[in-house]
């Protein structure tokens, strides 16, 4: 259900909505209980702010971090790294995947290398990339792209090769060119697979950018976490985690929303997160 539909469903008859879908109350309730319990335990037992800060301290750190511009700047830097890396990964993985799926000899030659390279932990290359590309934003973009690249590539290849033989026969019976078969049948048929890859890719792009900043950076949320760790600013670190969590959710919803619009003909869309 779309957000607007959910809202209409609740406001029309709140009692009935809660009876049919108790989770619309339970989900926020669990949040309130968890955060409230956390606050109570930290304050009641006098837990040190250096071990576990209370939610109120985290909110305060968030507020402070945004008002002095520290979090805002870090957020913008990391956001740019993620988006640039992700777009780079998506475009290059799609183009290479299309080439591999269409030209048998390219697939036969390069697929073993792709499988081998995929098993390599890309994060381990980060220090080398830092030497090659430098301490600036570029190295983080490359790391994010590298980590997000493979799931998109593999899904694109599998998707483009999964077209039913019936549909290929239909197109061939109309004397379709290879380009027409690709454009009119293989590509739309591959979209559910490609979006599955894009969905995994965005999570990995966030991971890549943060780890890249851990390895070496001058700005960004990952860099801030390291700085705050050094300063024993535990509330600040949690504030960054909150931002990263919200970013992850926003990216996921964005990809899922685009997916729903693009692949409108799939009935099982409703069951997807």
């Amino acid at each position: 259900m779309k957000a607007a539909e959910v809202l209409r469903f609740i406001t029309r008859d709140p009692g009935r909505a809660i009876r049919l879908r108790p989770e619309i109350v339970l989900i926020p309730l669990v949040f309130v209980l968890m955060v409230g319990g956390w606050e109570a335990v930290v304050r009641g037992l006098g837990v040190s702010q250096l071990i576990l800060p209370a939610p109120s301290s985290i909110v305060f750190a968030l507020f402070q971090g945004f008002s002095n511009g520290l979090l805002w700047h870090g957020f913008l830097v990391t956001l740019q790294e993620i988006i640039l890396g992700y777009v780079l990964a998506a475009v290059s993985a799609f183009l290479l995947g299309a080439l591999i799926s269409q030209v048998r000899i390219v697939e036969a030659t390069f697929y073993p290398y792709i499988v081998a390279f995929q098993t390599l932990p890309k994060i381990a290359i980060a220090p080398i990339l830092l030497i090659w590309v430098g301490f600036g934003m570029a190295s983080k973009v490359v790391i994010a792209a590298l980590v997000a690249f493979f799931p998109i590539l593999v899904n694109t290849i599998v998707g483009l090769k999964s077209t039913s033989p019936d549909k290929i026969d239909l197109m061939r019976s109309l004397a379709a060119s290879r380009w027409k078969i690709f454009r009119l049948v293989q590509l739309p048929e591959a979209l559910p697979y490609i979006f599955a890859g894009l969905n995994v890719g965005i999570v990995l792009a966030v991971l890549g950018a943060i780890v890249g900043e851990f390895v070496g950076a001058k700005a960004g949320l990952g860099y801030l976490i390291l700085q705050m760790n050094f300063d024993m600013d535990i509330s600040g670190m949690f504030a960054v985690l909150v931002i990263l969590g919200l970013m992850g959710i926003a990216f996921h919803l964005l990809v899922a929303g685009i997916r729903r619009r693009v692949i409108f003909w799939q009935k099982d869309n409703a069951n997807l997160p």
Partner: protein
Amino acid sequence: MAEPVIVCKGLSKIYDTLEGGTVRALDRIALEIREGELLAVVGPSGCGKSTLLKIFAGLLPKSEGEVSLRGTPVAGPRRDIGVVFQDAVMLPWRTVLDNAMLPADVQDLDRAAYLPRALALLDLVGLKGFEGKYPFELSGGMQQRVAITRALVHDPAVLLMDEPFGALDAMTREQMNLELQRIWLESRKTVLFITHSIPEAVFLGDRVVVMTPRPGRIAEVIEVGHPRPRSLEIMATPEFGRRTAHIRQLLNAGGAID
């Protein structure tokens, strides 16, 4: 008599088996499909009737013999053929109208010129008002009507139908047989109709080609004299019964029905 649309002589199809041997799927088939006729081909599974259609459509290469369509040899897929498969093979992201217009998009034909034709054909197959629907909103029988429209929209020389109603339930199937007869009477397209149902072949065909398997051969070509339009009631006539019994006998004698 007019020039035949498809002529095939000495047509054989030989497959290599995994064990290194060969299997003859079609054995020296000689057949002519006349202009404007509805030719039914009936035979049990494995008699090579679908292989025959795929060779006519240029989807499979032949092993021996000659096939020509309107005087030119069939060497691969061509634009002047329309095929209806057992499944409707809809593109789910296209509307009914856009599915019907697929040949125009594939062959880069002028959309504006073919649009009225697609709309008229959709009307002919009884789908007026469904142009903007998506395939998943239609029943199996309706999807197959879209498939028939799609196969006719680029005005092919021949319509090849490969067990098009085999996946439908018995009642829808009879209804579709009546519909196909009506569409054929109005469009007068040359049709090759492949089926494994003897009554369906006799009901629809001007002539019925009976095929037996291992290797796929033509046992007999039967002229069906029933006047058109035929109603479902003719299936209860003694003449219809004699024809189906005769075909069944041919298939039994060939060892086709175990």
